[in-house]
């Protein structure tokens, strides 16, 4: 029997190459140019590992931009602002006291202040957007919350970039990627968590979760302020020789993607509980109207926890490799390692319960929040109070 031709048309899914637009290629070109410049300037100081890291960064950024359009504009903003700050500094930190742009916007303590303040403001506006009576006002407010969050994340990343440069301007004792003490990693936590949340916004076309999701970032921002004003957290001190290793550049960020994902997972768990309660009390209320439905929230919570688990696993194993090289033991039952293990076991149990016993809803939401408390208590408590190999974050 002949088969009519029209029934076989329009079936091809365009391949990746064909789906890419001119904009995508432009993005790739920009990243490659940036990478080439970096390689040209620094390859004399690079070893194989650094070359590999640079190449992977380039590939990762191209892929991330293709995968998530908003990331492109964000990266460009971070690049332009960071390079401007670096250019303004020239070869002397003294410029921070002279140049108005550095003084009020771009020098790292100022940029961090901006970032934290913007997070707090964004959070407030998101919450307002969830709470106001009028739906159109809500839309407007939520959009503004989103813009402010992008601004906060941008400033935070710029701050880290600039801080990196500042540490090199201070001298060889201080020169280090700024993810090595408690203050640094709080800034890192803010930006990573903010970015992870923003990805959700794009992916689910939903902004109403912002007010709840960012609560944890707001708390961390307040703590950043506390460190800054009570403990001179923004001061860049000399670096412990143990931390002079390329491992820190992958070990710490991997773990903070994990921590950030757990943090949002817990906040979504909170949103689940809030919505479940609202559905009972005010079935037609604003929260019920605006928050994603329970099943979506459950799904989102699971996804963030799974993402966190993957990166916690990766980060911990990278840490083990580093530990083997630095301390001669891949596992020392150091408080921090043990804390990571406890957190890992907790989420492993959570995921097992969901998969194999099919647990959903309230218990899992509460458990997720408890999990975050455990993670936080472990992270800050171990860092600040228990002596060990990882005590880099003492106050």
């Amino acid at each position, binding site marked *: *029997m002949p*088969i*009519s031709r*029209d*029934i*076989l*048309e*329009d*079936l*091809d*899914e365009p391949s990746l190459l064909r789906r890419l637009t001119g904009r995508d290629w432009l993005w790739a070109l920009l990243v490659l140019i940036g990478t080439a410049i970096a390689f040209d300037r620094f390859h004399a100081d690079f070893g194989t590992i650094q070359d590999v890291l640079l190449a992977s960064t380039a590939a990762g950024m191209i892929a991330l931009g293709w995968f998530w359009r908003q990331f492109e504009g964000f990266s460009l903003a971070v690049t332009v602002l960071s390079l401007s700050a670096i250019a303004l500094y020239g070869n002397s930190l003294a410029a921070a006291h002279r140049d108005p742009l550095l003084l009020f916007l771009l020098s790292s303590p100022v940029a961090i202040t901006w970032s934290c303040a913007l997070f707090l403001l964004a959070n407030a506006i998101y919450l307002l957007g969830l709470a106001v009576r009028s739906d159109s006002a809500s839309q407007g407010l939520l959009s503004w919350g989103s813009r402010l969050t992008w601004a906060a994340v941008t400033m935070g990343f710029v701050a880290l970039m600039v801080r990196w440069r500042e540490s090199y301007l201070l*001298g*060889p*004792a201080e020169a280090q990627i700024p993810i090595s003490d408690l203050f640094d990693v709080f800034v890192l936590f803010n930006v990573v968590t903010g970015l992870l949340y923003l990805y959700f916004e794009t992916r689910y076309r939903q902004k109403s979760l912002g007010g709840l999701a960012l609560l944890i970032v707001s708390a961390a921002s307040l703590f950043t302020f506390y460190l800054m004003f009570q*403990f*001179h957290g923004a*001061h860049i001190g*000399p670096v412990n*020789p*143990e931390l*002079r*290793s390329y491992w820190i550049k992958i070990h710490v960020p991997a773990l903070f993607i994990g921590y950030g994902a757990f943090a949002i997972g817990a906040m979504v768990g909170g949103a689940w509980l809030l919505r479940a309660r609202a559905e009972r009390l005010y079935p037609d209320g604003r929260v019920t109207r605006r928050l994603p439905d329970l099943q*979506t929230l459950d*799904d989102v919570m699971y*996804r963030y926890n*799974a*993402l966190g*688990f*993957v990166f916690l*696993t*990766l980060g911990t*194993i990278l840490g*083990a*490799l580093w530990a*083997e*090289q*630095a*301390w*001669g*033991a*891949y*596992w020392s*039952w150091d*408080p921090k390692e*043990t*804390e990571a*293990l*406890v957190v890992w*076991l*907790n989420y*492993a*149990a959570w995921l*097992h*319960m969901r*998969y*194999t*016993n099919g647990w959903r809803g309230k218990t899992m939401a509460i458990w997720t929040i408890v999990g975050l408390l455990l993670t936080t208590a472990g992270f800050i408590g*171990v860092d600040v109070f*228990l*002596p060990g190999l990882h005590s880099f974050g003492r106050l």
Partner: protein
Amino acid sequence: MKLEETAGRLPARRRRSTAAVVLEFLGSMNLAITLLVAVAVAAVIGTVLQQDQAYSDYQLKFGPFWFQVFKALGLYDVYSAGWFLFILAFLVTSTSVCVWRNGPAMLREIRRFRLDVQSKSLERMRLHAKIETSSELAGVSARAERLLRNNGWRLRRAEHAGVITLAGMKGGANRLGYLLTHVGIVVILAGGLMDSKLPLQYKLVSGQLKVETRDLPASKVPADSRLGLGTFSFRGNISIPEGSTANFVYLPMGDGFVIQKLPFDLTVKKFTVKHYITGQPSDFLSQVVLHDPRNGKTIEKTIRVNHPLVYDGYEIYQASFGDGGTKLDFTAWSLDGGKQTKGKGAVFGRYALGTGSDARSLELEDFRLFNIDQLPGARGQTTPRNLGPSVTFKLRDAQGVAREYVNYFAPQLIDGQMYYLSGVRASPAEPFRYLHIPAGPHGGVERFMAMAAALHDPGVLKRVAGRMAEAALQAARVKNEKMRARVTDSTVHLLNLFARGGYDMVLADIEKRVPKDRRQSAADVFLKVLNSGLEGVYAHVLAQQGITQPTQKDWNWFQRAVPTLSVLSEYGAPYYLQFTGFKHIQAAGLQITHHPGTVVVYTGAAMLVLGVFLLFFLSHRRIWVRMESRGEGGTNVLFAGTTNRNPADFEREFNRLKEIMFAPLKPDRIPER
């Protein structure tokens, strides 16, 4: 651990053997979760309770009763405790059983396309859609096949009695994720067990090995505390002085150690600490030579933090540093007689000082070339200052009671004046209290020592007191021998009290002898007399040094010396050690490990990482298209799908495919869902 419902079927009920029951228990989810929680709790205990401290510290902290209880529970070394290893072994077993029971089904799932699925079960799936079209079966099936293939689906096709079934699958590797993660955990734990202390502990328990708890040099350690080359896995430490060679390491065990022999000789040629200009150490480098007598090989390398030396499965790390027996020159000033004894010694050496009640054993403990002190500055920043070299030592009396001292070579600038500092404490739990010896006008401690000696010289005191009494009586125009003797005696008495116990002893004496209501006035008088006496003694000391007209500077020195003289009795030693020269010899603290299990652990870790990525970022999705010819030239199409992860994403994908699939088909009618 149970599988998803889609993967397994409930077995028919029948009498089960004991083995099956045990297996079921071992592989059960509840057991697994219980074990995970148990490990977590143990880990929390191990974190909160500091591990591997000296037993005496624990005893102090918990008291004798709880110390014993905790010791019996193995809480001081949780991770080597029998019960903890038992839980881990249980966890390995549970996970293995789980993989054993579910693994084959998982592998089948990857291969099986389930073409035999019934249309009823397809209709029960949450995602399914039906259409009745007038298009021909052949065309519809060709369309479905091409659609799925073009979108990357692996396909199987079955045709039977006018029904064509297409079964498509994507992301089957997700199931591999399950296998890789669980097998990975088992492999990691197995590797960890290979590297554990378990074999050594067995040797301890069975009496083949004894822990050495005495502080002995390595050469004196008896043979039953030594391990030969056969040890499977170990991690030990050794401190090798510059220029020395060692072929063993210490393995810490319980509250002592055993000695592990190495197959090679390790010589430390030089140890260097590099500093930043701010004084913080920037790097630690050990230049070592490794010589293997088995094959005659010699390797030279510099070991740094993060850059170990790896040789034949042994890894040598820069772990710490210390003194390697620095040679020291010193002068021991006796604080009650002004005698000075010159001596030589080396760090870790023990030397006898003095005789009789002044006999002390000098134990030189440590030498530090730099002492970076952080002076607080503005805005939380600190300015580093180098106090120069120092020596830590103990002075132990005949009863065995020791005090710990730290003496700085150079005088330090404090409030604009130079002082020689000597810290003292009775136990390591206390902070050092510092004796401030004011430096003489030309540096040195000679003037202070002369002053201390004069205070302990009865002849000097008598002469000074006599002269004071004379002057006082003359001023009062009294001539009375008896009175003069009494004034002299009481002045000598006061000076003696001061020399023995400072102002405190003088005041205590007044309290004892003078009624309460007259104490204040008496104290005023006595202290005045005492101070004149001290000035007299000082004048005598100055005169001996050829100074008859003391300047303001001399008197300033006196003002600073008196408080120090007053607290000299609390110094706790009849000597002040002035260190005058040194030859610095350092020791590199190296950690040497032999961990054959590392490769196994890494393999497991790689499996685990790959596994979690497959497990969470892939989902195992299936789509079925069941097409049935209606006889009169049309086709009934049933489009259905399932996923084991991320249903929301799959729903989107499913709906997109469904819409493309159905778009050109001319529907007769779309049945209700």
